[in-house]
């Protein structure tokens, strides 16, 4: 009986965010990833698309799954000139770890959630590194993983933005 529930009517903890919010935010994440930050001499830039994917995986798991992450990864592969499937694998790995820890992470405040996000992003970069090493790339320094830290630092702001969006929705 419970099994035949329509997925759209199932009461979430909060009202589900409409699909277009998710789509727009993913689009913005993709755009931010395509911005040529290198021309502004920034040392590390976080992976905005991965962050957005992780965010929705944790807060709206019914909207975003591994298939979306996979397709998003293919886009980044082409943008970076990487082997097709490399970022796809990395994103899917991050989403997998995030879904494993999802129930746990939701009970923490935003800063402690960010600490978990470091792990997710780290797993993602590790997957990328793995493919590169199999293809015979040189060893990189630890500074490669700074991007994970910077990305995780953005997490509390994303939570705040999401909360603002949800509050605004309930007012209507």
């Amino acid at each position, binding site marked *: 009986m*419970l*099994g035949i*529930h329509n997925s759209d009517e*199932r009461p979430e903890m909060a009202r589900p965010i409409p699909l277009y919010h998710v789509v727009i935010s993913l689009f913005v994440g*993709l*755009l*931010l990833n*395509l*911005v*040529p*930050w*290198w*021309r*502004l001499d920034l040392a590390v*830039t976080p992976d905005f698309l991965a962050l957005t994917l992780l965010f929705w995986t944790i807060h709206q798991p019914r909207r975003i*799954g*591994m*298939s979306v*992450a*996979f397709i998003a*990864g*293919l*886009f980044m*592969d*082409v*943008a*970076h*000139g*990487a*082997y*097709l*499937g*490399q970022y*796809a*694998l990395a994103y*899917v*790995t991050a989403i*997998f770890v995030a*879904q*494993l820890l999802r129930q746990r992470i939701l009970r923490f405040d935003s800063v402690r959630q960010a600490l978990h996000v470091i792990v997710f992003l780290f797993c993602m970069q590790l997957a*990328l590194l793995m*493919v*590169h090493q199999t*293809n*015979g*790339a*040189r060893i*990189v320094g630890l500074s*490669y993983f700074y991007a994970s830290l910077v990305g995780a630092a953005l997490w509390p702001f994303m939570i705040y933005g999401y909360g603002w969006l949800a509050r605004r929705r309930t007012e209507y």
Partner: protein
Amino acid sequence: MEATPPDFFKRGPSLFARFLFFAILAVVLIAADARYAVVSDLRGIIAAVLYPLERAAEFPVNSIQSLTKFGLSYADLQHENVNLRVEARKLKVELLSYRALVQENAHLRQLLRARERYFPHVSTADIIFVGKDPFSRKILIDRGLGEGIHSGEVVVDDIGVLGQVTQVYPTSSEVSLITDKDEAVPVQVLRNGLRAIVFGSGNEDELNLPYMDANADIKVGDVLVTSGIDGVYPAGLPVGVVEKIDRSPELPFATIHCIPSAGTERNRQVFILTGPPPVNPPADAPKAAGVGGPHAGNS
């Protein structure tokens, strides 16, 4: 074993199964892309979708950069303009003698019955995207199939060789830099004509020169230029400068590091050398066999 909660909400295959499915799919794709060129159509489609987004994403950075230039005074600009005019006139004069030299070269080669040297046509392109991936040294430029770009064309900046076009999309193309770990460029030492092959290191400011004899005549500060024997890079373009040589007696080869001359960090505009398509080997294979002896035909 811990009891698992009853499955109230059926959600298809388990988390791990889904992960496994996508991971295997990704690995198969990577293998297909790395070994066989079967997925280049898919790449082309995605690149076509990405292109307008890349152009749009460029906008904020462009405006920030033009804002920082906004503060330049009129006098500065006028000064720069005068300098540029002088520079342009100087180059024009040099170009005159260059044209004369091209003529003379063609004439001399004709006398020697040597194949004509090919002088590429130069077109410009803007760099749209530099991958932040520390492993693959690739850039995206805003010229593609529509502008007649072909795979294999050489990309340079005003100082030296940057790389070659490796993927052409409808409106953009992907350039593999010579610093990419998979790139190799046949070079010559400018000082004595010694031939070698330079390999990318994956590091943006380092090239390697492996397989050089420990006693090879090469010094720190030697300039390396393309030798032109591969038919991809025209001869005589600066590639790099030898920075460090380690002639360790234990190793059969010297360890030589070079600094690439060109760099994507310096400017946004690059030049594509297009020209007559490279001479097809079958046409002059018999000639080569006649001149070069038994091994020439095999290559």
